[in-house]
């Protein structure tokens, strides 16, 4: 016979109580009032000797009741001869971090060793899967599917070891949230392969996450995910040899910076860092550039912003020295390429005429590191330029009546897909441009009274020309007054009018053109016509016109690894390709608008339309935030942290469940309770008789 609850056997010690009660003479019931107890001390209870034990039968009955009661609580049962040892299977998913931060010092070897250790803890019946994650999740070795031929654990371990040799950290950020969700879903999708229906205890699944768990991990996707109850997560954090990390940020767009000597750089040093002195410099072929290194003194957990001189416009790499974690010490920027743009001007006014158009136009074209615009108004020079299509003006501005050779020149220019801006200054001029504008009716509208003016009443801010000015802080055009304009009654049905005066006359429109771009202003920007040339809107409009005429010299924006880059539409049918920093080439389709193979930091080159557009891709900023994150942070997202029971625990629980089942069937304790009841009834009867006899005896003796 065995017992389910051995501890209740200690209750059998209660047999001492009846024995003691039989030995102790009962406290007298009689009470004696006395004047004062100040001379008395309590007498100890008298205990008779063993030889004076009385009522042996009663004592035996009471002891028997106590023993049987303890026996009943011990839940006795008779074990069955055969007990099946169940097989236990646990599913374990190892989730290995391959993000860029794993490139720090010895993080990756540590991770491989940790995976090896975890493999050694598995039992034969366990099912295992290996997944890696950075910004994406990759199932390296999935769980076995019912249709597949099952592999032995040793074979699986070998497969995993092979994969580990080939794996290495990437440059992507750490999206732990999505990785956990994907792993949990993979666990749920792949059903338990063994039939555990005959077991009473369902084994849960376990996810071992091998990661450095830095502060910059992405956990937000877990917010809307309901974590499965039977999946537990255990974080195996890797400790770097040298704590801390420093990384640099560019605080301004290097393309728009007019001063090469003062690119502002912010250096951030993480908490717990052991070093605080760093030097930052631009890498350049010039040997003297190393002298231009700027020293940063940044205590752990703080940052410092200083200008770092960029001597060479072609230097594309900012290097941080002094930081032990070197994976994020390089910051890339696209090289500065200054576009040379030529604008041909066909007008009667000189460049120095303050009442003319050219005077304001040339001042609007401010030179920047990425763009230099030259206005040419000399007819001879223009004619010379026009002889070679490679050197011709990029776009034209026309403000006077044109001669037939000039018209021919413009038509060829437009036919090549280029842009021409026509500023209507007189009715005669309009008639000379009929071949371009079509037959339109134009009236000269002039107001002598300065208080009588027109404004732009309707502007299409969705058009690319006005889109940069569409913001609420920029879109007020009411301060621009027009005193003279050419009222065009019929700009053409296919023309696209993007701005109208407040009386409904077209102000700016695009007449229909099959090849190039033709843009017409119904009023000039000179002070006689309007205040446009003196307004704050004029420079952005002119620069936007230049940009539209020529295009960008580089791709605007700040890109991180794994970002999808929107590519500009090609204007020619020339083959397109992107050359990665490591030399890989990606051929692009003509209609391919997005490039998402940015898996490596560096400067990429987009080749299209016969020119190179460089763009820089950097490590994601969050990946540089390597301060350790508390694993309990995951619990806030309802992720269940912990360990599934070991096989030994599960076996013991199964065995106990089996014993409980047997005991529940036999229920010997009920019989013990029945016997106890009988014993107590007999004891009560016996004791009652003895008491009656004693009372009778007492009465007789009295």
């Amino acid at each position, binding site marked *: 016979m065995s017992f389910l609850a051995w501890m209740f056997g200690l209750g059998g010690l209660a047999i001492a109580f009846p024995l003691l009660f039989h030995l102790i003479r009962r406290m007298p019931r009689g009470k*004696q009032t006395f004047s004062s107890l100040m001379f*008395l001390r309590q007498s100890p209870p008298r205990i008779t000797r063993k030889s004076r034990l009385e009522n042996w039968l009663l004592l035996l009955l009471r002891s028997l009741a106590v023993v049987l009661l303890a026996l009943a609580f011990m839940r006795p049962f008779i074990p069955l001869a055969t007990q099946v040892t169940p097989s236990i299977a646990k599913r374990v998913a190892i989730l290995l971090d391959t993000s860029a931060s794993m490139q720090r010092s010895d993080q990756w070897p540590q991770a491989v060793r940790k995976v090896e250790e975890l493999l050694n803890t598995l039992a034969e019946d366990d099912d295992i899967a290996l997944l890696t994650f950075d910004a994406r999740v990759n199932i390296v070795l999935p769980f076995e599917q019912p249709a597949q031929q099952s592999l032995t654990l040793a074979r699986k371990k070998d497969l995993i070891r092979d994969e580990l040799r080939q794996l290495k950290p990437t440059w992507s950020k750490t999206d732990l949230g999505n990785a956990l969700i994907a792993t949990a879903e993979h666990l749920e999708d792949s059903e338990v392969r063994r039939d555990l229906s005959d077991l009473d205890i369902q084994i849960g699944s376990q996810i071992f996450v091998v990661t450095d768990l830095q502060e910059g991990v992405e956990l937000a996707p877990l917010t809307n995910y309901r974590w499965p109850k039977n999946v537990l997560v255990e974080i195996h954090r890797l400790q770097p040899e040298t704590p801390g990390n420093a990384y640099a940020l560019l605080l301004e767009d290097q393309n728009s910076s007019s001063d090469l000597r003062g690119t502002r750089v912010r250096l951030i040093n993480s908490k717990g860092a052991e070093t605080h002195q760093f030097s930052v410099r631009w890498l350049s072929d010039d040997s003297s550039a190393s002298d231009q290194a700027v020293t940063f003194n940044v205590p752990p957990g703080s940052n410092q912003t200083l200008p770092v001189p960029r001597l060479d416009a072609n230097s594309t790499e900012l290097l941080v020295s002094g930081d032990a974690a070197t994976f994020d010490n390089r910051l890339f920027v696209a090289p500065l390429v200054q576009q040379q743009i030529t604008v041909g001007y066909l007008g009667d006014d000189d460049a120095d005429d303050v009442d003319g158009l050219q005077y304001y136009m040339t001042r609007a074209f401010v030179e920047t590191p990425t763009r230099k615009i030259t206005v040419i108004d000399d007819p001879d020079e223009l004619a010379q330029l026009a002889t070679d299509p490679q050197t011709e003006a990029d776009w034209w501005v026309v403000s006077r009546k044109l001669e037939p050779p000039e018209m021919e020149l413009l038509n060829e220019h437009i036919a090549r897909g280029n842009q021409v801006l026509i500023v209507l200054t007189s009715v005669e001029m309009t008639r000379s441009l009929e071949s371009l504008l079509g037959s339109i009716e134009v009236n000269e509208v002039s107001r002598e009274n300065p208080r009588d003016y027109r404004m732009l009443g309707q502007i299409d801010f969705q058009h690319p020309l006005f889109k940069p000015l569409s913001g609420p802080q920029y879109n007020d055009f009411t301060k621009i007054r027009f005193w003279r304009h050419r009222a065009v009654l019929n700009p053409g049905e296919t023309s696209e009018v993007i701005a109208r005066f407040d009386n409904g006359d077209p102000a700016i429109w695009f007449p229909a053109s099959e090849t190039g771009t033709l843009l017409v202003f119904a009023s000039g920007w000179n002070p006689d016509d309007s205040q446009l040339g003196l307004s704050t809107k004029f420079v952005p409009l002119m620069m936007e016109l230049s940009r539209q005429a020529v295009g960008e010299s580089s791709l605007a924006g700040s890109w991180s690894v794994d970002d999808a880059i929107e590519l500009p539409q090609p204007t020619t049918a020339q083959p397109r390709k992107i050359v990665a920093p490591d030399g890989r080439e990606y051929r692009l389709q003509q209609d391919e608008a997005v490039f998402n193979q940015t898996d490596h930091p560096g400067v990429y080159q987009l080749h299209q339309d016969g020119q190179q557009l460089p763009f820089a891709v950097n490590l994601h900023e969050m990946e540089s935030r390597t301060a350790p994150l508390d694993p309990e942070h995951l619990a806030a997202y309802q992720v269940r942290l912990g360990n599934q029971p070991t096989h030994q625990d599960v076996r013991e629980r199964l065995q106990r469940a089996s014993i409980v089942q047997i005991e529940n069937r036999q229920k010997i304790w009920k019989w013990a309770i029945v016997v106890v009841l009988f014993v107590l009834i007999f004891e009560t009867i016996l004791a009652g008789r003895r008491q009656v006899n004693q009372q009778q005896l007492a009465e007789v003796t009295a």
Partner: protein
Amino acid sequence: MPTQATKQTQPVSASNFAGSDSGLDPRTLLSIKNLELRARIVVEGFMAGLHRSPYHGFSVEFTDYRQYTPGDDPRYLDWKLLARTDRMFIKRFEDETNLRCTLVVDQSRSMGYGSVGHSKIDYAKTLAAALAFFLARQRDATGLLTFDEGVSEYIPARYRPGHLRRLMVGLERTVSGSTTDVNTALERVANIVSKRGMVVLISDLLTPIDTLHKQLGYLHSRGHDVVILRILDPAETEFNFQNEALFEDSESLKQLYIDPQSTRAEYLKRFDEHAAQLKQICDDQVIELHTLSTVQPLEKALLDFVASRSRKTNQLGRRQSQRNRSEQNRRVQPAGEVSPS
């Protein structure tokens, strides 16, 4: 489970201790409900046998002379002596009612104990009433103060018609207190009774002895003549219980399991130590202590009391006379004059 029959604990019959055959049996006397009647019986029985007694009353008149000094009240000059001897002497008197007796009776719950058919408080009340009756017959002023944990009643010492009746009513009150606080009572007596006189404390004095010494000394220093009549039950002096029982303190209601057979010796030892300490205190303070058993006839108790007072008075009288004579001799003889007596 059955219970074992236990015998009720009782002390051995108290009649064994009613030893004296002279006087009325207290049990018989105390069966009379009227306290005044009981007192009258006691005193009259006492007075009836007094002629056979070799002792006389304790109220002794006494006069004294001393030489006049300027500032003394001339009314008290002995003019006859002045006329006779041409010497000025002051004549000092005892008051006409020269005894002011205050009966201090303990009414605490412990006094309600009695194993002989009547309680200690019954005995004490009767004794106090008898004393009051006796003193009233001698035209002495008698007062009453009853106490338990505090002073419950105080009747100042008077001699006037109806005062005795008032004293009897005061004594008739039932036992209502709980603990005994003789110290408070004595302190109160010392504060209230400003005129010197006799203080008769009737109590069992079953209290810790520590502070009693101080309070009795304080009372004595105020000039009071203190007499303690300690009333004890035979069960308290002998502890003649037979069977073990839960003993409950009548004052604190505390319960103790006591086996009298094993406890008696220690009880008697500690009781005797307490009594010896009490005796020592009384001797130190020149206080008369009379321990009375509740089985002792009251007349005898009264007789013992009066006899001891008489002895003391005689001793005092003799000592005073000797002192006076020596003083007069010292004053007169050196000048060759005649003593005023």
